[in-house]
């Protein structure tokens, strides 16, 4: 597959919610965006701009009230294992251990259907190792810190090896150090060391602009009320990106540029 193949397409997507006794609330309006195969796309915007709605529509958890959404040119009709989701609240199963949570989709979903039990266990162990949870395999979610839970959620998403990874502020609850480490991990898992054709497609929501600049191939900037796509910023920073990347003047310049795009609205959203 060429790197320019369109993986996900949002065309004129709108989402309205009925509000009793009032005109419909518009969460997202006329949103059009093509996401390329193997691309790391980050969506930023002020709170309430409909970022999560866009992600849920891609996941098939929400249906758009206008426009079309497709994956590989087929319309998205509902959730499916080709699009893994990492939820804002992690959505871990409290009755499963770390191992059970990470292996949940492999065991009960189609993701592990073609694998032998040994291969499945091997992948689970490998993924747990990857996110740095080795030694905590038998713990339950309530025994873990917020950062560790987030790692479990990340490991569960990765273990299923979906074509598309949809991530809703996955690192928001972490302290700065853990966050930096997991950003590096995420890029490695996504495949920044591999040729573009072997990478998975990622749609990643954040409100942290430096995170967006560090991770993204392109950054979609949204505005609120109603949620619209304001602009798409190409990110020319070279890969693989490392700690050195964060120190580049270009990195800071890009952060500043995106901040200037959403600053007015972010202030308005905060003051209002």
């Amino acid at each position, binding site marked *: 597959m060429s790197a320019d193949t369109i993986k996900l397409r949002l065309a004129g997507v709108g989402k309205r919610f009925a509000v009793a006794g009032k005109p419909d609330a518009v969460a997202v309006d006329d949103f059009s965006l093509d996401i390329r195969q193997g691309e790391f796309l980050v969506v930023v915007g002020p709170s309430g701009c409909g970022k999560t709605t866009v992600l849920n529509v891609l*996941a*098939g*958890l929400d249906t758009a009230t206008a426009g079309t959404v497709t994956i590989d040119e087929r319309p998205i009709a*509902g*959730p*499916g*294992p080709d*699009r*893994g*989701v990492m*939820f804002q*609240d992690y*959505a871990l*199963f*409290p*009755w*499963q251990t770390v191992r059970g949570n990470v292996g*949940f*989709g492999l065991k*009960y*979903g*189609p*993701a592990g259907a073609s694998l032998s039990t040994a291969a499945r266990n091997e992948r689970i162990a490998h993924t747990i190792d990857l996110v740095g949870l080795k030694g905590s395999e038998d713990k*339950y*979610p*309530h025994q873990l810190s917020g950062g560790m839970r987030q790692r479990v959620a990340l490991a569960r998403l990765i273990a*299923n090896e979906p074509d598309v990874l949809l991530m809703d502020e996955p690192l928001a609850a972490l302290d700065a150090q853990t966050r930096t480490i997991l950003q590096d991990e995420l890029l490695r898992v996504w495949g920044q060391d591999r040729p573009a054709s072997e990478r998975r497609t990622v749609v990643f929501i954040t409100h942290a602009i430096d995170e967006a600049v560090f991770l993204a191939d392109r950054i979609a900037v949204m505005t609120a009320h109603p949620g619209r796509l304001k602009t798409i910023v190409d990110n020319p920073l070279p890969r693989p990106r490392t700690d050195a990347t964060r120190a580049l003047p270009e990195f800071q310049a890009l952060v500043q540029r995106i901040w200037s795009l959403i600053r007015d609205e972010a202030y308005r959203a905060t003051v209002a």
Partner: protein
Amino acid sequence: MSAATTLPGSAQGAGALRGRRALLGAALPVALLLLWQVLGTLSADPRMPLPSKIVAAAVTMIADGELPMAIVQSLGRVFAGFVVAALLAIPLGLAMGYSRAVERNVDPLVETFRPIAAIAVLPLAILWLGTGTSAAIAIVAYAAFFPLVVNTVAGARNVPPTLLRAAATMGLRKFTTVRTVVVPAALPQIGVGLRIAMGVGWTAIVAAELAVGAKAGGGGSGGIGQMMFVFYAYSIELNRIIVCMLAVGLVALLLDRILRWALARLMPWSAR
């Protein structure tokens, strides 16, 4: 554990305090028992039950195996009825809690029968099933069914939606989702239902055996309720009736403790 809340070095003092509290707590019951014994002895009625006679009766009834036999017989019926109720109520409750359509159709029926006490169904049970064990099991099953259904429905309906969404994005089939997400999420509430059902079933068996005893005229089907009926209607032994009452209460307490222990073992993730 509670020593941690007292000052260091005062463990002995805390122990003494606890001993004194226990003594104070026991003072009132002991005084009442003494009063009962004294007033009962003063009264001329030879049938007046007395604490001393009750203890003596209990010793004889346990020694000759009469009481343990009756309890085992009643327990067997409770267990059988309990299992029948669980096999019917838990799947039905899960279906009702998971699917609005099922609930809309079944709920009115359940709610119509729920207020009809098990004892009110007894005449039909005796006419159809006779005065033997099957009528007793049917009564227990009927009584235990309702608290189990109601609690299972509540548990299945309150599964966190984000967990169901997570399962959907991993491509789980509906039945697998019920088995691996709805059931474990509802398990604490089902456990509450099981405990209530066990208590209700035990209450129902005593009532049913009493009533069946009246119908069968002493030569009935056995069990603790039947035994109480014989002491009431034929030999008129009030002390023995009170022994049976105490036994019913103690067995119920024991059953609940066993069930709680088993449920805690079944749900290691909900441990403190």
